[in-house]
């Protein structure tokens, strides 16, 4: 031991690298919405890489109506105590005090989420001000880059939460991928106009054009209800999936959760997806997104 080198004592917390790096560790995984410590344990048992602690799953927020807010700290504490995997929690868009509270509770990631009722119709929270990293939703590349400019360390395509309908998740992910592909084809002269068109900082636009991907991890969310849905989002380019109401609003949550985890890992192997899709019981009923009134479309919240 005596010959072992010792190291400088200058740790730096909350850097962009540890925030974005945390999301890199979640890749290939499934993040599940849970509302109780018991559900969190079921999710962990099924192989979730993280859980999202919230008071009501999006399907219930839709049903109940009213203002949806950050969860009770007691409930979040209970979930943190119940599992050893990372715990995320949602703040309202622009409600930086809810985010401060979540940081003080020690959650591992904050989702500044359109599923909750926005607190500010102009400004999102300044996410650079926090040690805890943030994930934000996006329906297109410009929106994703505006969130990254505000400090988001992870992006999820929004989809339409609480519908059990994957159509909007597909639309948003395809939109983001198509806009990235278009940037790849731009020469340096065109990138300035592209940044203006995307309403995003030029430096980030240039970085995406060079990388051919976002500078942070991209997951998909909002409407995944089956193992095949999860695999679809992976094949379309999502690096992992969030599953909300799809698990605990189904007939056999434990079994469906485990099946979605397996299909997310073997997303390109139809035999595995077929195997895990057998006898899962009832899927959540689901909502046709084209019958949703504009005011009930969560994806329109945030800008």
């Amino acid at each position: 031991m005596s010959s072992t080198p010792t190291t400088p004592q200058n740790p730096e917390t909350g850097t962009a690298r540890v925030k974005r790096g945390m999301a890199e560790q979640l890749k290939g995984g499934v993040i599940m919405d849970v509302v109780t410590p018991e559900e969190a344990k079921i999710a962990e048992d099924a192989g979730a890489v993280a859980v999202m602690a919230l008071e009501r799953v999006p399907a219930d927020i839709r049903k109940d109506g009213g203002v949806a807010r950050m969860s009770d700290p007691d409930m979040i504490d209970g979930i943190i105590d119940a599992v050893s995997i990372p715990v995320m929690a949602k703040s309202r868009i622009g409600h930086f005090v809810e985010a401060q509270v979540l940081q003080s509770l020690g959650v591992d990631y904050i989702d500044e989420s359109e599923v909750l009722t926005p607190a500010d119709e102009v400004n999102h929270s300044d996410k650079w001000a926090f040690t805890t990293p943030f994930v934000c939703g996006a329906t297109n590349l410009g929106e994703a880059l505006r969130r990254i400019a505000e400090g988001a360390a992870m992006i999820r395509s929004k989809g339409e939460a609480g519908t059990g309908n994957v159509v909007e998740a597909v639309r948003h992910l395809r939109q983001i991928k198509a806009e990235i592909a278009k940037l790849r084809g731009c020469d340096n002269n065109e990138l300035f106009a592209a940044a203006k068109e995307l309403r995003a900082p030029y430096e980030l636009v240039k970085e995406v054009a060079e990388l051919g991907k976002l500078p942070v991890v991209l997951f998909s969310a909002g409407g995944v209800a089956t193992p095949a849905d999860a695999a679809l989002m992976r094949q379309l380019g999502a690096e992992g999936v969030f599953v909300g109401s799809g698990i605990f609003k189904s007939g056999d949550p434990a079994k469906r959760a485990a099946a979605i985890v397996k299909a997310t890992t073997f997303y390109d192997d139809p035999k595995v997806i077929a195997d895990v899709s057998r006898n899962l019981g009832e899927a959540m009923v689901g909502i046709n997104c084209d019958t949703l009134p504009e005011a009930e479309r969560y994806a329109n919240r945030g800008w």
Partner: protein
Amino acid sequence: MSTPTIGVLALQGDVREHLTALAESDALARPVRRPEELDEVDGLVIPGGESTTMSKLAVVFGMLEPLRAFVRAGKPVYGTCAGMIMVADKLLDAREDQETLGGIDMIVRRNAFGRQNESFEAAIDVTGIPGGPVEGVFIRAPWVESVGGAVEVLATYNGHTVAVRQGNVLATSFHPELTGDHRVHHLFVDMVRNTL
């Protein structure tokens, strides 16, 4: 000099970063998810990720025993963070049913450095890595609580062991794959090359 083929266990985690780091360290790198893919590689990296998830998927998809056999056969393995947990003989602060491959006679404490708010970066001197300290990126990182006599401690941080080697098995609490500095991957590629 031959070019080794090195797999990255691709059940979950930061697989792509390891594939890139290995490719830039003169190895052929490929993802490994199935037992037959394991047969085709000379060495294996177990990436960062969520160790409980990785362990469960290894059990469900019949990878656990082939991976254990790979380690027993003396094939080189390098684990980062969750990968360090996977090559530990014993764990603390883990679920009772969490399986590991073993390979290093050590006890590893999960999330020992704390939750994400405590995740940090610091310069780390590593025995056997010339050219000054490496950039240590620690994310909900484990540390090594204690080691057996055959284990070489390669680095410590604040008195906690964060890099170890026993025979052909290497492990770090931190994530060199998240930095542009591939010296630890070079060391591992050399370890693999020496077995060919």
